[in-house]
């Protein structure tokens, strides 16, 4: 019998497996996907948000604990647990040495993402390179990894873990870490969570999933049904507006379209619906998925003119291009008359000062609702481009309630040998909104805590199954 069973194969699961093994436990890791799809959503990640009081290798200046905490408080609107959040924030100050010991390399902030040079440490090669490094380290240390091993249920006894089930197979262990991701790829659950809107639509049917196709929330649902305490709203997620042509799953980073603040955003009725210039794009990109989800047909159209070209990250799919606005409306399938009225109203309302997309400039609209408060330039220079955008879910926030030991709770009582990490508990810290790189911070912190706790629980025999039964 293994000391520690880890269910999941992403960053949090691997951190848990490595930490448990470092403490002498024998570890089996069960990854539901085939080897080539291993790593869950971690394969699409690129950085870790880190606090630091002085410049540290790839990180410039300082990002103190309190500023990090205020940023988190801001995006979550208070839907967070301060003690757990600060635990995560503090651990990010020192976790990179541990990551490097397990083979992770860091690189300076990417071109096109220089705004994160202070706050985020980028993995060289991205999250898949990190997963590869952790898997190599796990193999070296003697962690056993099984692929194509989707756990569908746990055997529990009074809130304690006894065994996991893969179909008819039973895998017993002294303790267990579940880090098997959210439920974003479970279409029925998403449909349920978002329900039906006033127009009778099921909005979630039009969502694309930026993350792994393997996060179906099987274990999350099973544990909630088994009485584990849940936290968070199932409709909350990391949700950005991505190219409507993106693949249904695993579109990852490249499907985002970063030109919204340089132009205007329309809905299916060719009407604007939100201030495109409210704040810098990196601070606003994560609200547009939800904004588009609330529009009819769950689709938006970002419209720019030639002036914007070369000023934003090149999207993976080229935009629809036309030499007149009228033609662009037709190409996009929008009502040309209404489209022209919206654009003309916007153009007429623009008060152009000194355009500078690197600061909150003074180009704004007057007498327009909703206003565009910065970077408002008239759309007047052909060719014009349009991108159809859909809500793209990265991961869901509904999770299991934890304490600082990452223990799963049943009726308010922490389990003695069942722990949880990663997206399955990120909602404790992140009730809504998003802060770039915090998903990996939560996963790394709680993965390591869960692995350490699981190793300890196995050693002290808290599981009820003692070493004697081998």
């Amino acid at each position, binding site marked *: 019998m293994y000391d520690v069973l880890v269910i999941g194969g992403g960053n949090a699961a691997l951190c848990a497996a490595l930490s448990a093994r470092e403490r002498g436990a024998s570890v089996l890791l069960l990854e539901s996907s085939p080897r*080539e*799809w291993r790593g869950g959503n971690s*394969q*699409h990640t*690129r950085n870790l948000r880190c606090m630091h009081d002085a410049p540290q290798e790839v990180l410039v200046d300082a990002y103190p604990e309190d500023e990090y905490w205020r940023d988190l408080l801001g995006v979550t609107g208070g839907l967070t647990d301060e003690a757990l959040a600060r635990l995560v924030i503090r651990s990010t100050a020192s976790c990179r040495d541990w990551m490097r010991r397990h083979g992770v*390399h860091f*690189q*300076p902030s*990417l*071109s*096109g*993402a*220089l*705004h994160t040079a202070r706050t985020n440490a*980028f*993995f*060289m*090669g*991205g*999250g*898949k*390179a990190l997963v*590869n490094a952790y898997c*190599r380290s796990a193999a070296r240390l003697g962690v056993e990894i099984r692929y194509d091993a989707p756990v569908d249920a746990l055997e529990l006894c009074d809130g304690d873990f006894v065994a996991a089930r893969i179909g008819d197979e039973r895998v017993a262990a002294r303790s267990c870490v579940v880090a098997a991701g959210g439920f974003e790829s479970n279409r029925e659950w998403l449909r349920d969570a978002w329900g039906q809107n006033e127009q009778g639509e099921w909005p979630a049917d039009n969502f694309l999933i930026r993350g792994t196709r393997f996060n179906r929330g099987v274990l999350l649902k099973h544990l909630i049904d088994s009485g584990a305490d849940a936290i968070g709203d199932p409709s909350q997620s990391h949700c950005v507006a991505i190219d409507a*042509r993106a*693949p249904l799953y*695993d579109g*990852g*980073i*490249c*499907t*985002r379209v*970063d*030109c919204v*603040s*340089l132009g205007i955003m329309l809905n299916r009725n060719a009407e604007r619906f939100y201030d495109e210039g409210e704040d*810098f*794009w*990196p601070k606003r990109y994560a609200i547009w998925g939800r904004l588009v989800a609330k529009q009819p047909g769950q689709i938006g159209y970002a419209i720019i003119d030639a002036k914007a*070209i*070369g*000023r*934003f*990250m*090149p*999207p*993976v*799919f*080229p935009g*629809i*291009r*036309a*030499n007149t606005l009228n*033609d*662009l409306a037709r*190409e996009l399938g929008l009502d040309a008359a209404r489209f022209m009225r919206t654009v003309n109203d916007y153009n007429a309302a623009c008060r152009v000062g000194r355009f500078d*997309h*690197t600061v909150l400039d003074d180009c704004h609209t007057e007498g327009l609702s909703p206003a565009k408060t910065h970077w408002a330039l008239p759309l007047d220079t052909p*060719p014009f481009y349009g991108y159809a955008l859909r809500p793209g879910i990265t991961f869901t926030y509904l999770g299991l309630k934890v304490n600082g030991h990452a223990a799963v709770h049943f009726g308010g009582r922490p389990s003695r040998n069942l722990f949880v990490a990663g997206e399955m508990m990120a909602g404790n810290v992140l009730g809504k909104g998003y802060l770039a790189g915090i998903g990996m911070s939560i996963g790394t912190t709680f993965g390591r805590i869960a692995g350490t706790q699981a190793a300890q629980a196995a050693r002290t025999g808290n599981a009820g199954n003692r070493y004697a039964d081998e």
Partner: protein
Amino acid sequence: MQMSESTVGINAPGDSEAEVARVMQICNACRYCEGFCAVFPAMTRRIEFGKADAHYLANLCHNCGSCLHACQYAPPHEFVLNVPRAMARLRGKTYADYAWPSFMGAAYRHAGGSLVLALLASLLLFALLPAGQVFQPVDRPGDFFALFPHGTLVWLFGAAFAFAALALGVGVGRFWREVSPGVPNVPAASETVQSILTLKYLDGGHGEGCNNEDDAFSLWRRNFHHLTFYGFLLCFAATLAATVYHYVLGIPAPYALSSVPVLLGTAGGIGLVVGPAGQLWSNLRRHPLHGDPAQRPLDRGFMVLLLLTSASGLALLACRDTVAMGVLLVVHLGAVMAFFLTLPYGKFAHGIYRSAALLKWAIEKRQASGLKLGSD
């Protein structure tokens, strides 16, 4: 108005240039691999990838494999992204396209056949040239020139080398003009030389090396390559030293084991045995998704030819005082001649084109980027 063709083609690899453009369009929207090598920083200075850009980036790629193993869009993802393969395919095409004279581009496309042909012709040439004395002991032990007069060898190899230099020069000249590189300057040139001498872009960006059979990093490929590289340079230096001995100092071959030409040649020869053997060994163990499978005859043929050249050279040194000298000399001269003949139409060309691409990058990175991406 139009919808760009690449929209519909996002999942469908087209011909070499189109595939590099497709791949770079996806990479440019991701950029996770920026730290590995020069290709990705060069890519971020562009938002469109025309033919010239594609040729440049393809030759800048060192085929280390890091970006393939790190890629979230690699097969089985529907984007079927394989940057090193797309680059390798186009590289092979650029060698053939830039070849001079143009019809010799066919030699790249049939690399295995042309190499075997060149080797057989060269062996035949040197087997027939000495008119039947090969198996006879020569009067003075180790006297190569009793079989092949010095003047004949100088004329033959001089002509072959001059032609190779001309052909490669014309080819790389075409490549250089097409990629519109700007004017070389001293810092750029010195960085380029450094990148070449250290084979910088096989260090993985973190110093642990590149990939071979899986996602683990290792310095073996880099080390083997540079044993070959410096072995070749030492052998070249040995030839130059022997030329000085012959013409300037008036000392005829054979030279003593402790002489400069023999010392240089022996050290170089050992490098040219261990290096290509190691490269061949790594190449046979390479991950199946690495590089362009169609170019394996080009790659492996070159390694085998180098091995044959160095092994026959060392054997010749060891046995130069025996009756085997004649046969070994024919084999060695044949191998060296085949090497010279295929120089402008074989794997050797990669060094010339890649050096040119590295110089282009060193010049370009010192210029201001024309792009002002919003989030910078």
